[in-house]
């Protein structure tokens, strides 16, 4: 069951890109042990919101609280250091580097020789090999291969495998099943559930309400930079939520919580 104090608390968040009002007075809480589906059409502000949470964008006004402390500085490194792993759609892998080097980018394990930190390539190779085998990458792909060689699905698998491996408190997944085969998709969704069971907060972004309704215990719907719905999946059916998205706001009777 979710804790009482939220792990991440977003209060009255506004974000402008120049004159464009990307997030409008968004307030939402996220608890450990939750799997929250963040749903909305393209341009609804889902990705912008999680880019604030993972430190890429600094909000124009409003507050973000993490684990009882107000976040003052926004930088991806701070988010990662706080245990927030993000799987983003377009970024996260450097084509020119091997899988092993990408896997540990920014947190490379080292062996010190006379005090100088050298990459521990053996360790980097072993763990990333284990993960790419678990994720069913082609047998002829090795951890020393450049990411450039991988297909879209394989790239996604590396990103997800990495986030799961380094999980510590929060895993944010932005459209994690895009480009994936049916089998890979099931695997990813299973992992998301496992992480939740382990007590992590999982934020799962998608525009497929039906898919995420089966996984999530709570759904947050965004539209035009605003939060328009925040409901437990036990209180609303996927059809009802889809209707909310279609109407652009709550005009649907809420089913009593069971």
């Amino acid at each position, binding site marked *: 069951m979710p804790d009482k104090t939220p792990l991440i608390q977003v209060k009255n968040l506004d974000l402008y890109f120049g004159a464009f009002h990307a997030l409008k007075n968004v307030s939402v809480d996220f608890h450990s042990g939750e799997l929250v589906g963040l749903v909305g059409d393209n341009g609804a502000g889902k990705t912008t919101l999680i880019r604030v949470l993972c430190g890429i964008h600094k909000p124009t006004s409003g507050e973000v609280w993490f684990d009882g402390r107000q976040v003052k500085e926004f930088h*991806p490194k701070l988010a990662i250091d706080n245990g927030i792993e993000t799987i983003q759609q377009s*970024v996260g*892998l*450097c*084509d*020119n580097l091997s899988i092993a080097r990408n896997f540990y*980018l920014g947190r490379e394990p080292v062996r010190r020789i006379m005090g100088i930190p050298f990459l521990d390539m053996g360790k980097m190779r072993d763990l990333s090999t284990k993960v790419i085998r678990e994720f069913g990458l082609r047998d002829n792909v090795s951890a020393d291969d450049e990411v450039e060689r991988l297909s879209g699905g394989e790239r996604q698998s590396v990103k997800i495998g990495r986030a799961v491996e380094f999980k510590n408190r929060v895993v944010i997944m932005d459209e994690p099943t895009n480009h994936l085969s049916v089998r890979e998709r099931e695997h990813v969704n299973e992992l998301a559930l496992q992480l939740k069971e382990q007590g992590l907060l999982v934020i799962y972004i998608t525009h497929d309400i039906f898919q995420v309704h089966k996984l999530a215990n709570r759904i947050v719907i965004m539209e035009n930079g605003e939060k328009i719905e925040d409901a437990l999946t036990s209180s609303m059916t996927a059809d009802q939520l889809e209707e909310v998205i279609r109407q652009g706001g709550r005009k649907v009777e809420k089913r009593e919580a069971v």
Partner: protein
Amino acid sequence: MNTLARSQSFGALIGVAVMLAVFTAIDFSGWWTRATIANVIHFAAILGFLAMGQALVIMTREIDLSVGSVYGLTGVAFITLTPDLGVTGAVIVALLIALAVGFLQGIAVVKGQLPSMIVTLGGLFTARGIIYVWTGGSVHNFSEDARADWMTRLLGGELFGIEAAILWLLVIGVVLNLMLWATPFGNRLLATGGSEDSAESRGVLTDRVKIITFMLCSVLAGFAGILTLADRPQTHVTLGELLELEAIAAAVIGGCLLTGGRGSLIGAVLGGFIVTSFRYELIALGAPSSWFITFVGIVLIVAVIFNQKLARRLGHSV
């Protein structure tokens, strides 16, 4: 483990082989003499430092046009400051000046979000201007004491019967190669050049990586200037002019892709060897020295075409 990355220097290796074969065929007796080879290797070693620094900057997907001026400024500082600070003191202060130039350029590029081509073009003119003002256009020289100083001999003389510049290039080349391929910093440098957004999303402080790389490039250029003058201690205001073009040509001939993230330090040094050899051989064959720049241009274009084709064949997106 880095077979692919290392093969970035493949083109330069072929270039060296072809060049040596041609020179052997057309000018065997002129080329293969002790004096020629020694001279070419000396100047190639000096250019090698600049080329390695340039290669590192290009690998972060930036460029540094100021290295010729920084080479000159550091050299002039070294000679001019020696009477007051002694040789060792002058070396330290001169290298600090080079570091400061790299730092300022790096800050301007990342904090000002300016194209490095413009910032370092500014650096090129600014540093050259300082040379003119500082020297007043006059030529400085070393005293007998300074020439005999242990530091001067360590940098400019011969060590174990080998020219100091060559030994220094070997030592620093090995250190830089280890840094690039075997340390976390190198991994982040390559990542920054390959995809800055992705590197940043993994918590890499790409701004810091770039500033450090600009500082490395400047200090390598400055060190090359000091090595040159420790060997032949005489300054002139045009010291290092157009050297930035030779350094960029050497790095590109050596397999550095201007799209960032891929390159080779060994290739850059070989590229420097090719550029220097052409200069020497053109003069030896009696061509007017001004032809050299034209020739560098042609070699550069051929190298870019060759490296692009090679990269595409290997499946890189360039």
